[in-house]
């Protein structure tokens, strides 16, 4: 496949970026999108051009690092996949592909396609955990009976990999899907109920402070999420938040 790539280049956080156009030839349809990017970078280096910086780690859809906005969609046109799981066969020979970083005020660009998603870490640190005593007499988790429906839903929520596609996609750059997945994962389980009030209040507070937008239920996040995290989680977080703020 021969392709025209329009890639966002930005030297650093404060630099003004712009789209550069590159031609790339003989790409195998079996390559993953990131492999195609590797080939492009090899080519750029031979031409003495600074290679394109992009995030990646596991390349198997579990770490959430590979943030790319491809042809107007987070992780490209495919559904329920990350960029590393996207294959070139989803494109046609001769296509022009636009590649941009995930854009949001809370995700500043570090360089080219890499963005700083530490705002997610700070939201997580504000309450996305269960405080357990590790003194040696921790209760065996299996000794606590849990409703199968709740366990399944908690597990589904826990599959969120924190990639940020929901924020990148949302017209309001809202982080509600991510935060609600983290809130739900614990709120559904008895171990998480103890700290549920403070958790939801603190995580939402941190989310707002980071400068994410307000949710208007467009549902774009759910469609673009590589893990299929459901909007049900956002409704659950809204409920949790309402009751928590009435409580204290």
């Amino acid at each position: 496949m021969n392709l025209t790539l329009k890639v966002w280049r930005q030297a650093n956080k404060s630099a003004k970026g712009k789209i550069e156009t590159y031609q790339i030839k003989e790409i195998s349809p079996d390559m993953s999108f990131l492999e195609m990017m590797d080939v492009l970078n090899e080519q750029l280096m031979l031409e003495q051009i600074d290679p394109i910086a992009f995030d990646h780690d596991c390349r198997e859809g579990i770490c959430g690092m590979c943030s790319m906005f491809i042809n107007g969609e987070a992780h490209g046109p495919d559904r329920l996949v990350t960029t590393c799981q996207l294959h070139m066969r989803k494109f046609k020979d001769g296509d022009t592909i636009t590649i941009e970083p995930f854009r949001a005020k809370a995700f500043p660009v570090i360089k080219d396609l890499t963005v700083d998603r530490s705002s997610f870490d700070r939201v997580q640190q504000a309450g996305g955990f269960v405080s357990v005593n590790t003194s040696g007499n921790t209760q065996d988790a299996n000794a606590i009976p849990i409703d199968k429906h709740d366990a399944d839903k908690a597990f589904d929520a826990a599959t969120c990999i924190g990639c940020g596609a929901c924020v990148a996609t949302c017209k309001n750059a809202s982080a509600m899907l991510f935060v609600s997945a983290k809130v739900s994962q614990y709120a559904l389980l008895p171990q998480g109920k103890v700290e549920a009030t403070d958790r939801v209040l603190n995580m939402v507070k941190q989310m707002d402070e980071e400068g994410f937008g307000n949710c208007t239920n467009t549902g774009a996040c759910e469609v673009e999420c590589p893990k299929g995290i459901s909007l049900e989680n956002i409704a659950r977080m809204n409920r949790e938040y309402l009751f928590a703020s009435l409580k204290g």
Partner: protein
Amino acid sequence: MTLISSSIGRKVAMALSGIFLVVFLTQHFSINLLSIFSKSLFNQVSHFMGNNPIVQFILQPILILGVLFHFTMGFILELQNSKSRSSKYSSYKGRANATWMSRNMILSGIVILSFLALHFYDFWVPEMNYKYVEVLPLDANRYYEELVHKFENPIRVGIYVLSFIFLSLHLLHGFASSFQSVGVNNKYSKTIKKIATGFSIIVPIGFVFIALFHHLK
């Protein structure tokens, strides 16, 4: 206080004011509908609504506050949201993952707002003038004639029809969305969505029908 200063608090406030307006819309629709079936019944109900002190001095101010709150909040949300992505995408495929209605609530809202301004000028200002400025004698039979008179002008009817198309678009997203906002997303949501969609199409068509009915008659 976190309730109103937080993103979720605002979302819930937006939903509750939206639902409140939907309830009002239903009431308004029911009364308008009477004008098709019975001139005298329409006059009676309108006279009651226009002169009952509870309606006039309690419900009407609440409604005005509700409308003001809803669109002011809408503008605030829009402003904040536009700030949350300072550097824009050069390619952004919004329609790949969300409906046009959900992405253009502010647009449909602004059209409705412009209509409301016209509507106030058409009905509310003369009404207030009649009752409280000029203090004309009570006339329980004037409402129907006033209504018919307003729908004589084809341009006004055209604007009316256009506005209700946008109201329909606004509600096609907003009505069901407000349930999600207040935390209702469960096995009944599919049914709620169907009912909300039906309402969002039928009620605006009904308003349009009433306008055309009087215009063509």
